[in-house]
């Protein structure tokens, strides 16, 4: 479904600060796959996701979605197939607008945005039902401004917004990293629930290696812009954090000890 061919992204090209963030990456993801992506700082995980989302123009390579070349499509145009949740809870929502207004903006993703009413009665009922699924009581706060919500509530809302129109690709960039452990766990559970949809392919970046192995169907490890490990199925089920560590050290020739990666 998603096909990434020889993708390369270079920052500050032609300067002394030149940095190859993603180097000749080839990957194919199928619908229904839940892929966790791990790797140290500067491994190219976020850059890869930003290239897929259209945030960054790529230097080389092709990105196909359902066979369609979307490499040069602007971000807002490919957004119709892509849902995103960011690490920073403030990035996913409009803080000065109400919960229902935010949901309405996300809900009208693939519809024309003219002078129709921003929210219809029927839609409000639908939003209420969807919000009730989150189990955070937000269904009773439709008219509250998002700025009043906690980080966890915002991430939950952003997740809902990212999937309220079923995307083909769901991109999660360490979306629980800024939350306290209890809230992070809740948001992760919610992520699992929402990503169950067999039409969606989910890519989730995490710094928690145990989490990367526990959740999803496939795990990718990146280092210096390259994919150095790609496991799924039985191989992944047998994988432990210790084995993952030694694999990393062998393949990258460096140690993870100094990195931000959590070894839990």
């Amino acid at each position, binding site marked *: 479904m998603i096909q990434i061919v020889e993708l390369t992204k270079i920052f500050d090209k032609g300067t002394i600060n030149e940095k190859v963030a993603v180097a000749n990456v080839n990957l194919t993801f199928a619908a229904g796959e839940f892929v966790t992506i791990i790797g140290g700082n500067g491994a190219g995980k976020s850059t890869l996701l930003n290239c897929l*989302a259209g945030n960054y123009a790529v230097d080389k390579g092709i990105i196909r979605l359902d066979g369609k070349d979307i490499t040069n499509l*602007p*971000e*807002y*145009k490919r*957004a*119709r197939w*892509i*849902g*995103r949740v*960011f690490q920073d809870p*403030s*990035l*996913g*929502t*409009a*803080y*000065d*607008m109400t919960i229902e*207004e*935010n949901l*309405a*903006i*996300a809900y*009208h*993703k*693939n*519809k*024309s*945005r*003219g*002078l*129709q*009413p*921003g929210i219809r009665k029927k839609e409000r009922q639908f939003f209420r039902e969807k919000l009730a699924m989150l189990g955070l009581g937000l269904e009773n706060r439709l008219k509250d*401004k998002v700025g009043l919500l906690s980080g966890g509530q915002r991430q939950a809302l952003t997740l809902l*917004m*990212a999937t309220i129109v079923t995307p083909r690709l769901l991109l999660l960039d360490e979306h629980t990293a800024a939350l306290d452990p209890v809230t992070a766990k809740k948001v992760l559970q919610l992520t699992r629930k929402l990503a169950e949809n067999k039409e969606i392919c989910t890519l989730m970046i995490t710094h928690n290696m145990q989490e990367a192995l526990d959740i999803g169907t496939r795990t990718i490890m990146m280092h210096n812009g390259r994919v150095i490990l790609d496991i799924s199925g039985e191989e992944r089920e047998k994988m432990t954090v210790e084995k993952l560590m030694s694999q990393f050290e062998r393949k990258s020739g460096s140690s993870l000890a100094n990195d931000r990666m959590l070894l839990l």
Partner: protein
Amino acid sequence: MTYLAILGAVELGLIYAVMALGVFISFRTLNTPDLTVDGSFVLGAAVAAVICSGGGNPFAALLAAFAFGSLAGAVTSLLHTKLGIQPLLSGILVMLALYSVNLRVMGGAPNIHLMNSPSIFNLWQAGLFAGNAKLITAILVILIVFLFLYLFLQTRLGFALRATGDNEIMVRAAGINSNATKLIGLALSNGLVAASGAMIAQYQSYADVGMGMGMVVMGLASVIIGEVVFGVKPLLRRLLAVVLGSVLYRLIIAFAFSLGMPATDLKLVSAVIVAVALSSGALKSAVLKQKQ
């Protein structure tokens, strides 16, 4: 203050409120400091003056002013989104260019007088409301603009516009072309500003190429006074606050005039009002620190 001075201030406040609503859209809704306003206000006045002095329909003059103002706003937006010039500088550039454009529109003359031309303010000379014709016209116009804007901001497009000022990243992730919403927003904003300029030209019976100076500050003053006095939410109240803020601002100015302030000090007073209002946050925390 005499009754006439108060009446005049209210009339002016309501007419300038259309401009203040335009400034509200750029500064608050889109979160973009747009200085095109000083130029587009005069553009609207110039267009209306030319149409009215030629015997044209004064309402058509308002619509024409709106269209030309929108165009100016669109140029500012394109300079920013397509050519990568900072929003502040884009506005200054268009404002500067408009000075020449406005002179051209006015046929090279620095001002046009409209003594015997048709105006929206002298449509009913006789009849029940003849005495308050100007006030009633001003109220009618601001009601229409207010209603239009309030409804517009609650459409899907209006939502997209408001979200653009809040969080552009989220807006693009929701499949919205933020460059397009910025363009629509600045066009609408400057359209309203120009329409306000057109009304002022008709109200004062003249258009002057220098009449737009400091307009953006006056608009901002109205917006801020409204926010401080009447609150910022919900949306209906927020828009209402802009209109009332504009009236209040004019009343303050009229009061200062009645105390003997020379008209030439108007800009100074406006700047001080905005500076004080904008620094209220910093002043408050400084006072709190002193108390501790």
